[in-house]
């Protein structure tokens, strides 16, 4: 009886872990979409409005809904307002590092975001726009790949979770 109860618990927890893992994959895709929207809006604000970065981040980040990325953008804007010590790229990096977990971003995604942050706020508008353009092409490529594979990945994660549970149960029994 106790063994059966233990096996059920293992199966349920492994299944839940698989589902969580699958949700993480979906969340990353959602975050990439939000980042794409954000950077497109930011590019527009810089190109056509010449809007200062703080306002541009607030405007572009405002359309993101109340997700963890929204808090990253609003925190960056608020730290810019306070003019805390350090360069913009440092501030940008710190806030994205904090918010990365909530947005399920991978190291590769973060490195690209940091690279964009290094070019923002410079005197030369063209360099920034080129850097944003480059990032947007990279991210749309990532989104394309991810969208193709997401169904498979989600199924794989769920099955792996369930099968891992079964495997542990067999080992235990």
């Amino acid at each position: 009886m106790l063994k059966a109860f233990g096996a059920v618990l293992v199966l349920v927890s492994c299944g839940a872990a698989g589902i969580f893992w699958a949700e993480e994959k979906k969340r990353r895709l959602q975050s990439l979409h939000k980042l794409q929207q954000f950077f497109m809006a930011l590019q527009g604000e810089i190109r056509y409005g010449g809007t200062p970065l703080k306002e541009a981040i607030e405007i572009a980040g405002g359309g993101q809904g109340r997700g963890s990325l929204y808090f990253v953008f609003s925190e960056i804007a608020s730290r810019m307002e306070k003019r805390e010590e350090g360069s913009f790229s440092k501030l940008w990096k710190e806030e994205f590092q904090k918010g990365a977990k909530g947005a399920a971003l991978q190291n590769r995604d973060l490195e690209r975001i940091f690279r964009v942050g290094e070019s923002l706020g410079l005197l030369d508008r063209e360099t920034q726009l080129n850097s944003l353009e480059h990032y947007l092409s990279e991210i749309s490529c990532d989104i394309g790949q991810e969208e193709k594979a997401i169904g498979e990945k989600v199924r794989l994660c769920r099955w792996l979770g369930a099968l891992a549970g079964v495997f542990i149960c067999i080992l235990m029994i």
Partner: protein
Amino acid sequence: MDKREEISRLFSLRLRRLLGGMEIDYEKLQEIRLRIGCPVVLIYDNRERLLGKEGGFTKEKEKGYYVTKNELRETMEYICNYSMYAFEEELKQGFLTVQGGHRIGVGGKVIVEMDRVKNIKYISCVNIRLAHEVKGCADRVMPFLLEKKEGRWSHTLVISPPRCGKTTLLRDMVRYISEGNKENQIMGLTVGVVDERSELGACYLGVPQNDLGMRTDILDCCPKEEGIMMLVRSMSPAVIAVDEIGSQGDKKALEQAANCGCIVFATAHGADVSDIQNRGLDQIFERFVVLKSRGKAGEIEGIYNRGGQRIC
């Protein structure tokens, strides 16, 4: 946000701490100059002083606080609110205006393309000129500018050499006309300001930082010639105010505005009325306010009518 906070926000953290620790009357502080490898210079109460390493003023260069390259870069980041590109057009002219209307002049390596200044890079010196409004400085002058019979303002030109207070006086005239005056039973009028060098309104992100009155519309950083007619067509002002007229184009645009029924208030560099007459800028104006070239800024030498007779 008070003046102390407005100013200290512009500087790197170390400078912020030093300036924050000092007992300064910000009304007496006129300029702060930063140059890479040189001590910080403050123009305080019309006298030049150096910022000391430990804060406070010093006269000795060796005891002064020296500005590093990184500090100037950090300061520029704060001044531009981390957005140098947003001030590209202003930087081409060598200055930008920040919140509070303070004027930041910059120097460095100038990039020239096709004989025109494209940008400034390697910024190595910064001059922060603090904005000081003198509200009420035009009160004494305004009664002489009113055509009492017709109940309208006269076309007025303020004349003085540089740094004698022309712009400050014109700014207060604009505020007075826009707000009106209850005591003298003068109704407020719509005023259009073409602020080519951002000195009248000291706009930050399009919003005037100086008080120009509740009925004032402003075109910031707009060439006078184009701006005057833009305002006449779009905002139907009763009065148009512009700073530092000089070219024939400015004169023509003002004549056009006057022909459209607008009253013109302007300033021009010059020593006296004859100076203006020699340059042919006097035709539309009915009153000339001449400021003293020596002594305290904003002191009036005389007010003259079109015939050159002194009326005050």
